[in-house]
């Protein structure tokens, strides 16, 4: 036991090791899934519908228990006793895919206060945390509104606030961007960046390859209940084959970058992660040439 603990680098916050899980009706949720999340990193989990992303997330929080395999959190195997789960769930915050599955109080601030109270905090601290997390997701003005009067995107933010208020070390979001309009997506991105800057480890599921490439440090590819590749985001271009097996294209910016490289407009070692970044590179390159002439 001790030796295994020492073997695992402390930089790994969460590790799934050969997890196998079948749902009661026999459908395979996970089929030998292994995955590691480094402390303080931003991670995107990509995979087709039904590839097991949600099932992985429910394992990380102890909601589902693997039928075989081990899950390690901060170097220790998850302890499924009542107190062990309490400890785990106060560290790992999970935001559900569907906000109506998560929210169950009728008022916004009541729902956000639910998690902190479950941690056993006192009224004053809870009030503080509720205010701070509603502020972080830009929902302060909605504190005493009724949940059923909110739009889908607003409900989604309330869900995030409800988990933020528990101040988790590892925040897991199941398709946080789905159903949000462009502005809300940008705002949510700013919220996530803020959390990352505070040292919170982030793991999210998404179908948006451009977003994953632009935002994540590490990208994990899921297929048929298994994590088929974990890579550093800048190396995504080398995984075109794996991606197309998942039915995903390369990010648009990579196709653009390759085209420009072939025409000699972009240096080989340059790897822009977004169109904005690419544009800046092109402009500095042009300015550089202008100076040269």
């Amino acid at each position, binding site marked *: 036991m001790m030796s295994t603990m020492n073997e695992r680098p402390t930089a790994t916050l969460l590790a799934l090791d050969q997890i196998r899980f079948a749902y009661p009706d026999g459908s395979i949720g996970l089929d030998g899934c292994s995955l590691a999340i480094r402390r303080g990193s931003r991670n995107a989990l990509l995979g087709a519908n039904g590839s097991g992303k949600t099932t992985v997330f429910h394992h990380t929080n102890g909601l589902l228990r693997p039928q075989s395999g081990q899950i390690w959190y901060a170097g220790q195997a998850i302890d499924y006793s009542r107190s062990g789960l*309490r400890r785990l769930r106060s560290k790992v915050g999970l935001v559900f895919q569907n906000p109506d599955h998560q929210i169950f*109080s009728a*008022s916004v601030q*009541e729902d956000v*206060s639910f998690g902190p109270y*479950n941690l056993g905090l006192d009224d004053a601290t809870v009030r503080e945390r509720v205010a701070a997390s509603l502020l972080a997701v830009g929902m302060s003005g909605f504190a*005493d509104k009724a949940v059923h009067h909110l739009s889908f995107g607003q409900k989604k933010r309330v869900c995030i606030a409800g988990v933020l208020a528990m101040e988790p070390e590892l925040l897991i979001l199941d398709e946080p961007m789905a159903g949000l309009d462009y502005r809300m997506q940008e705002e949510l991105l700013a919220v996530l960046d803020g959390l990352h800057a505070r040292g919170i480890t982030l793991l999210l599921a998404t179908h948006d390859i451009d977003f994953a490439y632009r935002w994540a440090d590490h990208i994990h590819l899921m297929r048929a209940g298994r994590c088929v590749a974990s890579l550093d985001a800048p190396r995504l271009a080398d995984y075109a084959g794996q991606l197309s097996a998942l039915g995903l294209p390369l990010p648009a910016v990579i196709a653009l970058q390759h085209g420009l490289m072939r025409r000699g407009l972009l240096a080989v070692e340059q790897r822009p992660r977004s169109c904005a970044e690419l544009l800046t590179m092109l402009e500095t390159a042009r300015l550089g040439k202008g100076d040269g002439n």
Partner: protein
Amino acid sequence: MLIEESAYSNRWRKVSPAAKGLFALAALVAAFAAATPVTAFIIAALVAGATVGGAQVAPGRYFRVALPALIFLAAGCLSLAFSIDWNITRGDLLIQLAPDGLHTVAAVGARSLGALAALLFLALTTPLIDLVALLRRLRTPEALLDIMVLCYRMLFVFSTAVHDTVTAQSARLGYATPRLVIRSLGGLVANLTLQVWQRAHTLHVAAQARNNDGPLRFLQASFDNAARDLKIAFAAGAALVLLSLWLR
């Protein structure tokens, strides 16, 4: 949903629910303490006036919410006013004004109006979430309140589910003929049954994910001027009761 809308949009939304509850209670007491129908009627008018004039609930909406109760009340009063005498041997039906029917009707009807006005005042100015918070402070059993909150939330989740399912069915001609209507309604019931079960399960899982293992606890809303509101409500409520006792 009319009640719901006005509870959220009225001018006294931010007034402490304790104050509103106290005033409604006082109005209820005043209505029952009223010695004459006229007094009870005045109380009812005053409370309705507070709802429409003070909290600015639109009169039309107020009337529409009150209407079913009023009809019920009228039917009840009519049956009190008349006595029916059915003589089997002669085989005829005798309907006559009960001896002191009119007086009873006036007394009961006016008091009921007062009580109705008091309850409408509370329902139309206070969202249920505030009422639950108030009940929580009044030490109502937790389990009861948790059930109230969950039912209330589920009401909306389900009305959305019903609405969505019916829309989806109609969009595919599910209600085009009487035969199809029956089929679609069957489908709707089956679908909802499954959803009830699934929702209950997912909410349980969601509660676990946020570390819940017992009673549901929530932050109580705070109202800035609670003390001031309570004083005003106390004064207004006391005035109502005194008025009712004085107008003999």
